[in-house]
């Protein structure tokens, strides 16, 4: 008796495997009361697990769900979940590998932008839960003397993220979330989006080509001068003034640094 307890009690792996695969038999020892069968009873758990995870994915990827249709999405999500169940109880972090799954999932091959839209939605939710920080006030940059300006480095806001796509993923995402028609969007236009949460609401803005490279450099820690020079090399038409006002409006950065000095820190 004791031995059989031990054997069954340490078998959550068997129980878990049977939850995710309805073709597996019931875990050993699972019964109904007073000799009743337990197949439909166990199916309640199977259903709870799968449906709740499908719902979680539908909440995280609403634009993808709208693009493929709700029923198709749910069937597709079921396949994804079986292959990549969540590792943690923090479901708002689930689905990090869903964009890669979409890229390999043949039935959605006709929608080549879909993985990038999913990537954007995943980062959107990451930005939603990122730490709270005030964005860099414009006065902070205005206070830097002109000769120091090019040495300024900016500290990214925890919510700031860039999404680069070979497709019009930002426009498609925005239209899908707003439930607008997609027919005016040229899907094959490459787009780069900047996701930020300047105060409380997450937002996304399209970055023109030069600005995308400029922001990438700044997010990677290059100085304003380095980033501007590198961008001008590749994009002679690059509008630096416009990019700097987008930098301030978007709230992509929190503080600025001049060599060892940090400007914008809390008052001592």
């Amino acid at each position, binding site marked *: 008796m004791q031995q059989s307890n031990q054997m069954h009690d340490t078998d959550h792996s068997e129980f878990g495997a049977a939850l995710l695969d309805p073709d597996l038999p019931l875990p050993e020892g699972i019964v109904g009361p007073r000799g009743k069968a337990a197949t439909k009873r*166990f199916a309640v758990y199977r259903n709870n697990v799968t449906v709740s995870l499908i719902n979680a994915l539908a909440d995280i990827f609403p634009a993808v769900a709208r693009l493929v249709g709700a029923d198709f999405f749910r069937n597709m999500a079921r396949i994804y979940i079986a292959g990549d169940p969540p590792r943690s109880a923090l479901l708002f972090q689930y689905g990090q590998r869903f964009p890669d799954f979409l890229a390999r999932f043949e039935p959605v091959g006709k929608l080549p932008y879909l993985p990038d839209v999913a990537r954007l939605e995943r980062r959107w939710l990451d930005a939603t839960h990122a730490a709270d920080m005030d964005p860099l006030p414009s006065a902070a940059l205005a206070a830097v003397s002109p000769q120091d300006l090019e040495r300024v480095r900016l500290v990214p806001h925890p919510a700031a993220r860039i999404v680069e796509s070979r497709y019009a993923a930002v426009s498609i995402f925005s239209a899908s979330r707003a439930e607008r028609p997609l027919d005016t969007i040229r899907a094959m236009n490459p787009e780069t989006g900047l996701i930020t949460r300047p105060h409380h609401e997450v937002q996304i803005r399209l970055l023109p080509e030069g600005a995308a490279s400029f922001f990438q450099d700044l997010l990677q820690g290059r100085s304003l001068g380095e980033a501007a020079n590198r961008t001008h090399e590749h994009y002679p038409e690059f509008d630096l003034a416009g990019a700097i006002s987008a930098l301030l409006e978007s709230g992509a950065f929190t503080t600025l640094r001049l060599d060892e000095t940090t400007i914008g820190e809390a008052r001592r």
Partner: protein
Amino acid sequence: MTQFALSTPTTGGSRFPSKPLPPRAGAGLKTGHIDAILSDDYRIGFLEVHAENYMGDGGPAHRALSAIRAEFPLSVHGVGLSIGSETGIDPDHLDRLARVVERYEPGMVSEHLAWSSHDAGYFNDLLPLPYNQATLDRVAGHIGQVQDSLKRPILLENPSTYVAFEQSTMSETDFIRDIARKSGCGLLLDINNVFVSATNHGWKPLQYLRDFPLELVEEIHLAGHAEDTDDEGDLLLIDAHDRPVADPVWKLYEIVISQAGPLPTLIEWDNDVPEWPVLRHEAMLAEAILDRMGPASMLGSRHAAE
């Protein structure tokens, strides 16, 4: 040199007024209800949140909960700690729970008699456990670990279940009483779970409540359930949290309150969530029972169930 203040939380001392859960009706907090709750003339007794929804670093969820916590007593209800897990409590998850508790200073912290995580992953459901000595030792040990980490006792909630285990050697009520005795935790009595499990396993709900250590109960949960059928075509109840509390569950609630005295009572409504006034109406029904069974019955309350 220009300097700018960052929005860092104030440290040192409490961020919030001290608010234990009152013996009133409360509601599970839903994002869509927050503005309505804050502006409602009816001041709900308390609100309860799932801890996991507030384990992110920042953002709108924390902002909303801070506004709620400034005005209402709060209960933090974990759904992902997997206290019955055979691979142990995940220390990272326990740290995250401790941070939520530290951040919001809730009047109550509770978790479930269930498991949800294994090496293979997180199943996002409250899965059943066999009731025997091995499970008892494991669960009591895990609760001790959680209480040590949080530096406060927690409440353990009785589950709703659909299957039984050949490996069980004890009744659910004996199992729960022994766990509380061994770990020092309090109990959260979910009366809908009692009704669902009793129906599904052919127990008598009143007998269950007679056997349950009511003197250890510090909070009540009420919720709606759905109806299905089992393999034999008999009624199988599903703990769906998607509709009003059923009449027989209200009757059991009256009996519990008449015996135990007024207790903080939560209405859970997690799926097909209605507008706030519908949930508030359920809370007011519970509050009417608390008032009716009120101070007079308090005199005889909190006696041992034996």
